[in-house]
């Protein structure tokens, strides 16, 4: 196993090198550079442009620039963002990433569980009206034009019904007198979610060998108690009202993301469940007289989980990239919007920094999913 992991890590490093080189040269091959965007200003002379190019190092050949960038990156210096100058790329990313991760992590987890649950129900009810109905609705939602759908939801729930705020990720009137900034709250919310997740995972593994019924009950109880504990801590925290405001603004984006994306997981689960249901051990479980729900949830669904879980793990790194469309429509200033702005403006350091993290996490996720296979399915062994 260790030999496999080390080999994969070497592969990741090589792949990252190729990925970053390609990305840099593709970005650089775009016509013009960041200084062109100032040419719309009549006061920006050709001399000023040359001076700015020199200041940004854009007057040097691309190979020299790439070499410098790579050298700086290896020492942990990702450079200064052109469009957010004089802030560093790292500062911009640290500011934007928590907002994106928090929104999209929650949306991804919800859509995963909704999709997984519906998928196994659909497979079990194959051929019924429920299967056809849910599948058609899921397929429609999966293929809907996201910006249009998101704007319709804002119009319906924000403008017409006034249930949720329109756009933005917080209410200025709530935050005007706040003593902390939004990132302070986001970071603590992320810590809370991490703590909650660790508790759930720990309990899951600790109760693995227990009687399934008892283990399940304990897991639910611990989950609910942890959730209530988190809520109580936040409710009585001096910044709890700020977290509440963020949650209020997250409701609609999460709803849109879940509604649009859950069917991907649902259809994948359904397909793998249908394959699993043909296996002999399912027939054996039924022959033993086990209740249908036990056969479905314990025997079929758990074995069908493997590709679905892989899909989830591999999708997680792209959370950092956020959804450019979602973040734009909901005025959610996260990594997706930043990446879009940086790409359009030719802010190569920021594009490279963002992409490097996303690429690194994507490759890492592949490694994690490979290793996780061995844990989830004891039959799998790497040599």
């Amino acid at each position, binding site marked *: 196993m260790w030999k496999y992991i080390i080999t994969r890590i070497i592969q990741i490093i090589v792949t990252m090198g190729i990925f970053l080189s390609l990305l840099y040269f593709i970005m650089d091959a775009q*016509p*013009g550079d960041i*200084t*062109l965007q*100032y*040419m*719309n*200003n*009549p*006061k*920006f*002379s*050709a001399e*000023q*442009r040359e001076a*700015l190019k020199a*200041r940004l190092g854009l007057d040097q050949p691309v190979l020299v620039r790439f070499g410098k960038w790579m050298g700086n990156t290896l020492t942990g210096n990702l450079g*200064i963002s*052109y469009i957010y*100058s*004089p802030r560093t790329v790292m500062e911009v990313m640290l*500011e*934007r990433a928590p*907002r994106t991760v928090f929104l999209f992590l929650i949306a991804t987890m919800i859509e995963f569980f909704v999709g997984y649950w519906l998928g196994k129900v659909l497979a079990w009810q194959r051929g019924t009206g429920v299967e056809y109905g849910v599948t058609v609705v899921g397929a429609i939602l999966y293929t809907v034009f996201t910006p249009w759908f998101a*704007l319709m939801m*804002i*119009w319906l729930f*924000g*403008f017409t019904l*006034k249930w949720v705020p*329109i*756009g*933005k*990720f*917080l*209410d*200025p*009137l*709530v935050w*005007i007198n706040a003593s902390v*900034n*939004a990132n302070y709250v986001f970071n603590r919310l992320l810590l809370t979610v991490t703590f909650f997740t660790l508790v759930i995972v720990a309990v899951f593994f600790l109760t693995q060998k227990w009687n399934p019924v008892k283990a*399940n*009950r304990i897991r*639910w109880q611990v*989950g*609910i108690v942890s*959730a*209530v504990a988190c*809520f109580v801590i936040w409710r009585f925290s001096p910044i*709890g*009202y700020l977290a*509440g405001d963020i*949650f*209020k603004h997250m409701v609609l984006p999460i709803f849109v993301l879940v509604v649009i994306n859950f069917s991907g997981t649902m259809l994948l689960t359904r397909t793998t469940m249908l394959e699993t249901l043909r296996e002999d051990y399912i027939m054996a479980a039924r022959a033993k007289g086990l209740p249908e729900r036990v056969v479905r949830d314990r025997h079929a669904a758990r074995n069908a989980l493997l590709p679905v879980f892989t899909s989830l793990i591999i999708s997680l790194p792209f959370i950092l990239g956020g959804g450019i469309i979602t973040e734009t*429509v*909901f*005025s959610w*200033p996260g990594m997706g919007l930043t990446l879009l702005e940086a790409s359009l403006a*030719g802010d190569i350091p920021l594009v490279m920094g963002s992409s490097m993290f996303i690429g690194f996490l994507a490759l890492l996720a592949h490694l994690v999913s490979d290793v996780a296979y061995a844990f989830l399915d004891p039959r799998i062994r790497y040599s």
Partner: protein
Amino acid sequence: MKKTVWIVISVLLLFSLVLAACKPTQKEQTGGTVRYAVLSDMTSTNVWALYDETDASYWNYVVQSGHWPALYGLSDQRYDIIPALAADMPSDFVQEGDLYVSTVPMKADLVWSDGSPLTADDVAFTANMALKFRLGLNWNSAYNPDYLVKTEAVDPLTVKFFFTEVPGLAIWQYGAMMGPIVSKAFWEPKVGEAVAKMDAVANLAIDSDEYVAGQAEAVDILHKLDSTGEPTYGAFKLEKWEVGAFSQTKLNPKNFFIGTWVEEYANGAYKEYKEDGSYTYTAFGEPEGEPTLKYKAGPYFDSALYTLYEADAAVLALRNNDVDFILTPNGISQGQLAQLRDDPAIQIVLNPQNGFRYLAFNQNRPFLADVALRQAIAAVIDMDFVTNQVLQGQAVPVYTLVPEGNGFWYNPDVPKFGVGMDTKSRMELAVSILKDAGYTWETEPAWNEDRGGSVDYGVGLMLPDGTPFPEITLLAPSAGYDPLRATSAVYIEQYMRSLGIPVTAQLTNFNNILSAVYDTGDYDMFILGWGLSIYPDYLCSFFDQTNGNPYGYVSPTLAAKCDEFYLETDIDNARAQVFEIQNILATELPYITLFTNPVYDAYRNLEYPYTEVLDGIGSGLYGAPTIVKPFTAAE
């Protein structure tokens, strides 16, 4: 069953927790805060960066540009130069040694927002810093190191500017006199490291690599300095910036102009005064008759809130009464206007834009350097038809580089090829211009009455030297970026083809056009646009005859006139020169000016002392938070 109950209970519990956490908030009524929607965030609060290239953006300026004062400003609507920090107009230039000096008297008892005195020392410090670091863009426009040598505070209320020669209007009146001023007491202790870096290279040639590197390092240090707690002067000061969400400015009660009455008169007179009689300033003659404009300067709000929205969400927020005004650099789009027109609570105002879209030629290619060719193209393009019929009145044709809205500098009598003619006459005029210049055709363009009156396109156009006219490309932004330019490019292609010019319109990415024009020079023709300043020195800078211009346009006539204009110190003489320059440009046509489009602003709950303003309230006045009042319905 038991598990299902657990699931239901837990889901309900979590849902209720989320709902409970979402504490409802009361929507604040307008009165204390004027609420603007902005479509992009600020990027910096550092004044050195804000007026330099890196952070000189509309979105920074809507919130912050009024925070730093200038010695002089421009009057409302008429754009006359009037004193701000200055007590009166500057002295005439006198020669002191090799330098030419003007002295500016300042108002007494001015203070920054922290109560510290605002004096000539602040003016001198700011100008000398900009000169030392050779700061770019707006700093450079204000304090141009090629002309301004230094600034000295003679005493707390008197400042002297030293120039290498008597400066023209662009360098002095519309330059240094209007440059931003920062607090010396705040910044001087902070800039030590940057100054030391700059001093280390100060004696090197400014085009040497060492100087460029040292200057870049010093400027970066300057741009990164923390501005937290910086005292400012404007009627609002920055209170809070929640990155990616909103910014808030609050009233600065120490601003001198709060409560000042402003009056403008038909005879050109201008008057400012305070009701208690403590301050009166009159310029441009004695006021006579009723004022054409009269208002009392605010602010009438305690704070201004700038909330970040996506464009469509901003429109919904305005309709939903979540914001009072949508700020955009180019106004509200037609599609968004359609959603706003039906709401009686929303005011929509229309203003001319200080800008234009134009067609330009690469005159480094000899066949495009012929004035006759450009005149013929101008004659055949019917912009009245394009703007009124094709663009449905969304744009207005322009025939000179100074838009009509910039009334003082606008020359209405420039040559206009083909304007007012019908299609047949336009075609005949264009053909005759080309023929006179020696162009020939295999088949000449002709008017065809048999087809209901249309042009039979010319075929086989030959240059005066007898060679075929080469295939050329017209670059224009794609419809996604600017449908007006994309549409007009397609029509211009056909107008030119009717003359037999083998042109193809290529609608492409905006950056591709900029790169072709400013980097590679590999283009034939393109359509772009300019947003302009009030003072029209751009007429010369666009077509720089000394260092060259991206169009390869060479004009000794223009060069001579621009040399005069740059040195002109009298505004009436400058106006006459600007009129002549417009004539030259409208004749030689390095640009064929196409159209400008009106700027629409939309707001609610607000009342402005005037709404007719070049570029609109949002773009031209950044929403004017210092003069806007809460709307009060008439009794």
